[in-house]
């Protein structure tokens, strides 16, 4: 794997902006007028107690849930009304916990499916029905490249279900990478992992997704402080604070909230 360094954030180049984002479930407001602005290349973490609306926010950005009110801009385009798959095609990738790979398919097929999604404009519907997958050069080249990048080229024909823990994690990140995202949403990628496993995952993300803008939901505050360019703190659906790790750490409201145990 080639070692690359994350480029410094280019100020003023906004990749994602949300404007007054609201999501209600019946009477309950899960996301309450959230305004976010993410710069291209930024590593942004979202923290907050359970029920603060972090996952809902990701669901709204990725399109898994429709918004109740507000607007989402991606690369300057209003994407609020788009379906999840349209958003993926515009460059919003979403990574899941590792149990979410296609367990019955081989490692290669997992990655190829993602690559195929990117390359699908290169063939017509008849080809897509009758030309076997091994005949698509660009798609398979991309698949090979990514398998190599995440270090799974040796076990590409294994079924995903039988992979070891670490390999599955690589696969999951490889799949996201193969969708060619500009922005990747990670929802607690390290949940349930030991300290070493967590570190391994984070290293892999840092290593493989150097060109991408990253958004991370994470409960491990130390890790967040160490990794993030900026941190957004949510509480009860609203933004409590936002800024660099230092700014957030020194924020009175955040300190109060955390010292106060951040109401569950």
């Amino acid at each position, binding site marked *: 794997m080639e070692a690359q360094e994350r480029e410094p954030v280019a100020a003023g180049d906004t990749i994602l902006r949300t404007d007054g984002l609201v999501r209600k479930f019946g009477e309950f407001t899960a996301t309450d007028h959230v305004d976010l602005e993410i710069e291209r290349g930024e590593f942004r973490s979202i923290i907050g107690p359970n029920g603060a609306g972090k996952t809902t926010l990701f669901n709204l950005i990725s399109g898994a849930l429709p918004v109740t009110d507000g607007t989402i801009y991606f690369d300057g385009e209003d994407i609020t009304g788009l379906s999840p798959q349209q958003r993926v095609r515009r460059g919003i990738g979403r990574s899941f916990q590792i149990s979410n790979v296609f367990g019955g398919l081989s490692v290669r097929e997992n990655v190829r499916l993602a690559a195929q999604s990117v390359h699908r404009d290169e063939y017509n519907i008849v080809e897509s029905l009758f030309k076997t997958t091994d005949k698509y050069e660009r798609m398979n080249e991309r698949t090979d490249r990514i398998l190599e990048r995440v270090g799974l080229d040796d076990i590409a024909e294994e079924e995903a279900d*039988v992979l070891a823990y670490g390999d599955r994690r690589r696969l999951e990140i490889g799949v996201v990478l193969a969708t060619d995202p500009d922005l990747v949403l990670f929802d607690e990628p390290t949940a349930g992992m030991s300290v070493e496993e967590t570190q391994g995952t984070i290293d892999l993300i840092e290593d493989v997704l150097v060109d991408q803008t990253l958004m991370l939901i994470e409960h491990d505050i130390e890790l967040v402080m160490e990794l993030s360019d900026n941190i957004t703190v949510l509480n009860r659906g609203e933004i409590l604070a936002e800024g660099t790790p230092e700014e957030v750490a020194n924020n009175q409201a955040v300190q109060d909230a955390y010292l106060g145990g951040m109401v569950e």
Partner: protein
Amino acid sequence: MVAGVIQQLLDGLTLGVVYVLLAAGLSVIFGVMHVINFAHGELFALGAYFALALIAPFGGTAFFAALIVAPLIVGVIGVAIERYTVQPLYGRNPLYHILLTFGLVLVINDLIYLIWGPGASSLARPDVISGTVSVLGLGVGVYNVFIIVAGSLMAFGVWASLEYTRYGLIIRAGSQDRQMVRNLGINIDRYYSLVFGMGAALAAFAGIILAGTRQVNPEMGMSVIIPAFVIVVLGGLGSFKGAVAGGLLVGILQESILRPYFPFLEGMVIFLLMIGILLIRPQGLFGTEAPEDESGDLLTGSRGGFLDPQTRNRLGLAMILLLALVPLGAGTLYSTFIVTLMIEILIWGLFALSLDFIMGYTGLVSLGHALFYGLGAYVVAITIQDVTQSVIVAVALAIVISAAIAWFVGFLSIRVAGVYFAMITLAFAELFYNAIYRLDTIELFGEEREVTGGSEGIFGLDPFYGIAGIGVDLDSIGIFVGTTVLTGQLLFYYVALAALVVGFLLTRRMLQSPFGSVLKSIRENEQRATFLGYDTVVYKRRAFVISGALAGLSGGLYTLFTGRVFPDNAEWMVSGEVIVMVILGGMGTLYGPIIGSFTFFSLEHVLTGYTDRWRLVLGSIFVLFVIFLPRGLVSVPELLAPYLPGGPGPGPQTEPAPEDSSTGGGD
């Protein structure tokens, strides 16, 4: 006139109340344990038969006693069914309940024939509830009034116990959100038997009161089960209130409005209503939120790792060769009928394959595949009868029209998932089935032309294998192979075999293509496929179109095979049977359905030779299959592998095992 209207309303209420009782049990059973209980109709019939048996020795006065005792017996049977057959299936996809209860329908129905014989009998009832009374100058049947009053009291009693008892509270909560109830620390599973038994008893009660005026006959269960499902879907799965509203609505609609004033629309309107409701408000009139997705796993066939690809291909080729030899032995080694039977097996093999393409690869359970099979059969028949004798034109039309209708049905249906998809496809198939009867003949250019031939069907067709006069008539050519001459049906065998092989290779090719990869990813994890950027609805719809086209082809072949077509070819039992074949053979493999078709027809053929009660045996086999061998026959080698000398060790069998069909073998 006013009196007439009142009488019509009374008729509607009478039937409506019976429907309410029938649907209430079905609905609550579904709501609480997600079981689609096709056997509910048979429990309804059992109630009437037990009442018949109880009343016979004592005469009409025992009617009231039977009204209490018979439902209790059926309730106990319901509990037993739940304990011993349904319970092993919890956590699996509702599809397995369809197969299980389909098997139970065969078993219970045949037991009724075995014990009580085939005829209809009337249920004696006391004089108190016979005859007519005059109300405001209107002659009203006392028994109708009795049905309305007794049925309403019963429904009210059930409602009250659901509303005001602890059990009722738990059941109601469970039918809305099982997980929540579990989170409260209540073991909802323990209530399942109770709910099932109660539902069965309610059905039995409905069966008895209806039998008092309609007679008891072995087919009475079959005749109510489809309307009962429509009502449950209309009212909202799991909703008692919905069952009441839906039952009365359908009863009154059918008896008081459609029959007297729009008889032409009867049989169509309730299905149109059901489709409309499912599209606009999938949860039904009174259902709460769309149901939790507790659909459970579809257990697909073997992993395909048992044989290496080369061996598989060779085995497939050998099978095709072997099949190609079958007609040669006709008349010498075995009778020609074996070939006839094999043709039917090949045609249904293709039909089952088409269903598996949508069911095994995208997880969409179509309960209406008879629509496409019947459509193909009728398109070919009508084309040959009215347009051209050319088989090529007729079959091409059958494929194109089936594909087009599949696109339309898919366009409307695929947005709803799971059981709702099953129900909406069932509704479309029933609409088509009704249309066959209504489109007997049409006026065209001032001339009456035969279309579907109504209940008679179309026969005496004379197909021509060619186009524009160039081609052959299978009956007038012969190919001599040694001492055997191949002609007519023996030649048609090769047409059917070729169609199946082409269908198989075509679908296998598709599964190796990018399109097929996406289908497999949808089966594995649809949400994840969405987040790879795929519009899964589009892919499912395409798969449905391909499936519909292949089913249409198989139906068209059936017409060519027999030279005749009947409405029976499109009835819902056809959809049920083909699902049975797919699961019997092994879903999610391309050769599994073909094995399923072979097994189904062979069993039927062998069993009918030995006993009139073959449905009992067949039904029992399905029940055992679904409980003990849900992955179908194709999983047998894998299960046996560890015990065979030199075979591969036991593979991981606890997970759902999908098959990688890129290595799928021949037939």
